[in-house]
């Protein structure tokens, strides 16, 4: 089914007219950014703002350039991005398989749902210290924390999507004598895709949060760890540089999910936008 969707003609995917490009607004946004940066630069240099509150943009830039050219950021970025992807991939695979299993065993789902709701309501970052006790200081703990952070939103959305609300679709399948497997592959799963993507979308951002928390509490590598060290040294420029890196990672992850979603769940962009 997914395969069929991916082979859909490109023209059909873009059903809506492309948004007009608002050059004027883009120019205004850029100008606003530049003037804010200039203001921050002047404010920092003239001492209008304490150096303990804000670093000058030029300093932050210098730290970034130095960090990349010296190769200092390399391992930390790899560690952060690596554990986001590892944790997210494991959590997504587990959550979607479990959701698929539960959807076909309604009794089990009803028994387990209260637990899922309880776990989802608990702030997962609060488990982080416990995970460090269990798995020690390092990458393993970090991955486990990321998994706990993004597992539940993916699971809950997938479960939600796998519930069939359209009685006609179900009766259509029954009128053709569809087997349980056909019902799952041809109806439930494709129907759930937009919801699963909404979950993945939230999940990938939660994975980033989970990674940073993990790096705060229990590792000696990663952008979050560098940030913590810089804070300890009152190196504000480096702290801001780390924030900037995390922001870029977040934006890239968000963009990747959006692209993937547009191609796999193209017929229901609206649903996922609402839940995300």
């Amino acid at each position: 089914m997914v395969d069929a969707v991916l082979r859909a003609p490109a023209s059909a995917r873009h059903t809506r007219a492309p948004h007009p490009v608002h050059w004027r607004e883009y120019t205004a946004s850029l100008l606003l950014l530049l003037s804010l940066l200039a203001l921050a630069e002047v404010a920092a240099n003239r001492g209008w703002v304490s150096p303990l509150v804000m670093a000058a943009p030029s300093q932050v830039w210098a730290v970034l350039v130095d960090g990349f050219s010296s190769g200092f950021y390399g391992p930390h970025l790899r560690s952060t991005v690596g554990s986001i992807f590892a944790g997210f991939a494991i959590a997504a695979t587990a959550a979607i398989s479990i959701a698929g299993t539960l959807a076909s065993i309604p009794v089990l789902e009803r028994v387990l749902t209260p637990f899922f709701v309880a776990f989802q309501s608990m702030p997962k970052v609060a488990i982080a210290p416990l995970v460090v006790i269990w798995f020690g200081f390092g990458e393993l703990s970090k991955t486990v924390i990321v998994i706990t952070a993004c597992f539940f939103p993916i699971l809950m959305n997938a479960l939600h999507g796998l519930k069939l609300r359209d009685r006609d679709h179900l009766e259509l399948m029954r009128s053709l004598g569809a087997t349980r497997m056909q019902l799952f592959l041809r109806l439930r799963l494709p129907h759930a895709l937009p919801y699963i993507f909404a979950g993945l979308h939230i999940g990938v951002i939660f994975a980033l949060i989970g990674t940073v928390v993990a790096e705060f509490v229990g590792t000696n590598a990663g952008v979050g760890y560098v940030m913590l060290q810089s804070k300890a040294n009152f190196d504000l420029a480096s702290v801001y540089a780390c924030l900037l890196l995390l922001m870029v990672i977040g934006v890239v992850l968000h963009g990747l999910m959006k692209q993937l979603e547009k191609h796999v769940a193209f017929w229901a962009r609206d649903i996922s936008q609402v839940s995300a």
Partner: protein
Amino acid sequence: MLLAASRPTDEHIAEPSSTAPILRLQGVGKSYRAASGTAVPALLPVTESIAPAEFVSFVGPSGCGKTTLLKMAAGLIAPSEGGIAFRDTGQPIRPGAYGFVFQAAALLPWRTVLENVMLPAVILGLPLARARERAIQLLELVHLARVAASYPNQLSGGMQQRASIARALLHDPEVLFMDEPFGALDAMTREQLNMELQRISLDQRKTVLFVTHDIEEAVLLSDRVFVFSLGPGQLVATLRIDLPRPRSLSCKADPRFLRAVERIRALLDRGDVRETEEAHHG
């Protein structure tokens, strides 16, 4: 006509046993269990026989049990009493041996129009290359060949419903069950689709069970009209419509047509039909 060449089962439609009923409703009734535990009848038992290639409409107000009877006849809902026999099997019609058209087109939004029409072949495991050819022919039949590669959300309601009729015909079913298929469409689209449905059912000699609450639509299309009433739902009369076929929209002015409509309206009025139903659709 268009599909005559590709129809694999042409011969058994003309077989001599075609005078024997294709579908027997043997005291089929439905009741629901109320919160108090007592059984509330939704449809009193119905006993009727439907002949091969017959077009039968179920007419009545909402809640009279006509859709329930249709779904029981198709085997989608289990009856509380009585039974349904397809030909001489003593069993309800097998899933996959009939086509069902829903009130909403019920197309799958992630499949193109062509892929939607091919769905029965995918589920029934029919050879896909042949099914594809047939799907294209059926889309031509319902004037949708042009939008075969589009997705359902790019189609108007009338086009979606036509696609769902093509889907119901793909596996060349002997019986078509249609649950208010044109209920949500505007009057012009509806008349156009009525004519197309008549053409298809005559050309392909389908047995059609058709639920509607539009009396004129029922008379225009049917060989027989089953009239239902409320409280509790029951079959109150069956009317044979002896207008020559093929019928055109102009036959709505025929005195026999008008008499049949009047007769059904009178039956419905007697059966405690609410004003609003009639005002809305009459």
